[in-house]
């Protein structure tokens, strides 16, 4: 049985380590915050200028001056700090963030990622995605294994405009987990969702991978 959205997020959460500073993308990646193991200290960064994101606020705590990168109202923690966008991205681009979890439309077998633009559709812009994939120490993509139309999303070569080239370290889909130890190595299938067979995954994937 394939993993659901929350299970995919839980799988990504297994990659967290005590003391990590982490940036979570919009969508499934946001759910990783609900799956941080008890007793583990993980600090969440928001690229609009905050370290230490708290939960959504209670109705009477909503503050227009306190939002996350998805422009949602949030709350602060006792350990939070605020800073400007130039400092926020100095952190991201300077390699100080340990891990980011992002969604994607396509990932190639070489670790390229496309998640910001579909030509011919309205283009909204890349926001901070290109900075995150270029700067963060470890890049995890969480995405459905196949598109709604059934097309593979882990593919030999991205067809959409790239967000970053040779940057992805791990791919978590609803069917399986792929990982590579460094950016010169190919991806390896390291885990299957319960009841999903390696042949299933192979049949639904066009990318080359090991294992």
């Amino acid at each position, binding site marked *: 049985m394939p993993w659901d959205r929350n299970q995919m997020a839980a799988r990504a959460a297994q990659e967290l380590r005590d003391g990590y500073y982490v940036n979570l993308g919009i969508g499934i990646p946001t759910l990783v915050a609900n799956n941080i193991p008890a007793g583990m200290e993980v600090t969440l960064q928001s690229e609009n200028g905050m370290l230490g994101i708290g939960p959504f606020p209670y109705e009477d705590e909503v503050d227009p001056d306190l939002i996350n990168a998805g422009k949602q109202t949030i709350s602060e923690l006792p350990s939070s700090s605020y800073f400007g966008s*130039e400092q926020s991205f100095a952190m991201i681009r300077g390699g100080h963030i340990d891990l980011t979890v992002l969604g994607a439309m396509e990932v190639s077998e070489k670790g390229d990622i496309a998640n910001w633009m579909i030509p011919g559709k309205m283009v909204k812009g890349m926001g901070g995605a290109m900075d995150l994939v270029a700067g963060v120490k470890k890049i995890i993509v969480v995405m459905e294994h196949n598109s709604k139309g059934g097309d593979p999303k882990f593919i030999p070569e991205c067809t959409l405009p790239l967000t970053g080239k040779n940057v992805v370290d791990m791919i978590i889909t609803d069917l399986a987990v792929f990982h590579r130890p460094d950016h010169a190595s190919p991806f390896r299938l390291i885990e299957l969702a319960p009841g999903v067979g390696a042949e299933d995954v192979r049949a639904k994937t066009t990318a080359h991978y090991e294992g």
Partner: protein
Amino acid sequence: MKKIYPDAGAALDGLLADGMTICAGGFGLCGIPERLIDAIRDSGVTGLTVVSNNAGIDNEGLGKLLRTRQIRKMISSYVGENKEFERQYLAGELEVEFCPQGTLAERCRAGGAGIPGFYTKTGVGTQVAEGKEHKAFDGETYILERGIRADLSIVKGWKADESGNLVFRKTARNFNQPMATAGRICVAEVQEIVPVGSLDPDCIHLPSIYVKRMVLGAPYDKKIEFRTTRQREAA
């Protein structure tokens, strides 16, 4: 040297010209210079290039200047949530230069710091890198990005003292800090102006040297794009 002006229109007096470039602070609708945007709209100045992370939403923030067709070009990282923007862009009436968010913040800081160009890994191998100089440092490839200098910066602060020292509040700081430094002149609107000596000199986010004119913008009716809340658990 009085930096305090009676209203946003007065604070911008003599600073606006058709075809100019303006750096605007804010992220989404958080920490945007509302009063100064209104005053720019009322001035009728046109053909603007606006450097801002976002473009407001329909009829809020920079959306107001899009609606009046005063903006010719946006340099931004993300412009969703704006139907009028979409219409003008798809109709070819509005030019857009997409710039990764971190590159945009760094370009404005660089411009303000006398740095005309810097190298970054962000965007290497993507459309963003096309036409830009590539250079290898220690075996890795980087692209050259340009510092941005503007004719004018408009920012929104929380408190300012009478000398122009300015502090921001929570995530409303965002792009206001780098944008303030990139303009040849910076005009700030704030929620409160306090006497000199009221702010902690160790906690000034934007030293007075950057703030040449300011205006008290309160009261503010701050808009929220996505109000997300949680429920208190029953006792």
